[in-house]
């Protein structure tokens, strides 16, 4: 036979296996390790090859086991892997680190491979992992909880130490929209009543807007127009801020706590412009 079957011993044919199952072995190509290595690293190409031959019965890859072994190419795959890694209800995606510990534990807990990770499988997994990392780096606006966070250097962090951005229970786009709306309303009404964490998160943005108005140039006005939803408020702000806050060096808001909300006992607060 003119092929090299690297993955054979690790995926023995199961009883009642479909003889027409996808063969992962490059049958037509001449026997060199490079071609088979290439084919193992591109699972998409392997899916397309469907030439069954009953003589090749040593190893048969089953579609389910192959799919389960490879991570995060489709959301359903990642859900299965996440469920395997940890008993969580939400789908879990791996952090951005490609440490060997992660790789081996990932492979060992998947249902497909029953043995320790061989070199070729791990190379296939790592190549796919690298592929999935580039895709998962794009920000998904969902409620997925990351198993590990990372800091700027790329180290894995399991805790929230030192992270000062209030998340307000929302993904980043909704959070920004909420804060934009709240600052617009505060600048319009002068005093609003909201929950205490939102009031505390707002302070930074209200102070930023007033600082832009204190500067007063056209560029700052356009920056303020890009943040505040109603443009007449921006123009009124730029008109009156120099008189009102000209001498005050910051701290343009005040938060007064008040009675909790009846429906959910949320701590409420008034935030007002000083």
């Amino acid at each position, binding site marked *: 036979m003119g092929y090299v079957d690297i993955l054979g011993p690790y995926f023995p044919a199961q009883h009642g296996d479909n003889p027409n199952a996808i063969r992962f072995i490059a049958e037509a190509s001449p026997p060199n390790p490079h071609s088979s290595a290439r084919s193992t690293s591109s699972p998409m190409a392997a899916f397309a090859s469907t030439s069954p031959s009953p003589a090749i019965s040593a190893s048969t890859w089953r579609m389910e086991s192959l799919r389960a072994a490879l991570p995060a190419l489709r959301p359903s795959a990642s859900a299965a892997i996440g469920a395997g890694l940890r008993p969580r209800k939400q789908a879990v995606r791996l952090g951005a680190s490609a440490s060997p510990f992660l790789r081996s534990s990932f492979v060992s807990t998947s249902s497909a491979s029953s043995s320790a990770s061989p070199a070729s499988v791990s190379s296939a997994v790592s190549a796919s992992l690298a592929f999935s990392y580039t895709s998962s780096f794009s920000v998904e606006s969902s409620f997925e909880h990351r198993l590990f966070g990372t800091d700027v250097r790329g180290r894995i962090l399991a805790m929230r130490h030192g992270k000062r951005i209030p998340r307000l229970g929302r993904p980043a786009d909704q959070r920004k929209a909420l804060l934009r709306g709240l600052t617009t309303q505060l*600048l*319009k*009404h*002068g*005093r*609003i*009543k909201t929950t205490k964490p939102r009031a505390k998160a707002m302070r930074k943005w209200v102070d930023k807007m007033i600082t832009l108005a204190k500067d007063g140039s056209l560029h700052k006005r356009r920056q303020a127009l890009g943040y505040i939803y109603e443009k007449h408020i921006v123009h009124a702000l730029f008109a*009156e801020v120099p008189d009102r806050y000209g001498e005050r060096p910051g701290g343009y808001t*005040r938060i*007064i706590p*008040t*009675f909790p909300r009846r429906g959910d006992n949320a701590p409420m607060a*008034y935030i*007002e*412009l000083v």
Partner: protein
Amino acid sequence: MSRFVDPLVVGRVIGEVVDLFVPSVAMAVSYGAKDVSNGCHVKPSMAADQPLVRISGRRNDLYTLLMTDPDAPSPSDPTMREYLHWIVMNIPGGTDATKGDVVVPYMGPQPPVGIHRYVLVLFEQKSRLVDGYASPPADRPYFNTRAFASNHELGLPVAVVYFNSQREPSGNRRRR
């Protein structure tokens, strides 16, 4: 932080309306069934009629009560500070505001924009004031509590309470 800060200071009532004072008389204000405490929220519809204001004090003392809005027309732009809502004079101690002489009739809160504070201030009079009838404040807006107190020799207040009120959204507005 267990240090207690007076809610009147936190709500900037002391400072913008009155000066720092020592409360000496107990005052209980209630709109119907709702008792007013510092900083509580009262709807304008509930506050349309004048409240029941009960005060302590000795029977032969006379007190003056007034109600103003320091956030008129808008808290971020209080150009009409303060807006006068009510003045009652010559209230005997230990009774309520109906026993006094109304100098400026009660007007309910009607905040156009934002959340307004409505402050009820109680002064102790030195003597029965008759000239309150002769010179009531001309206008409701541009009122000044401190100037009024010094004009009538009322001194520092003896009791202050304030509540918040906000314009109720009209119910028939069609939501897109």
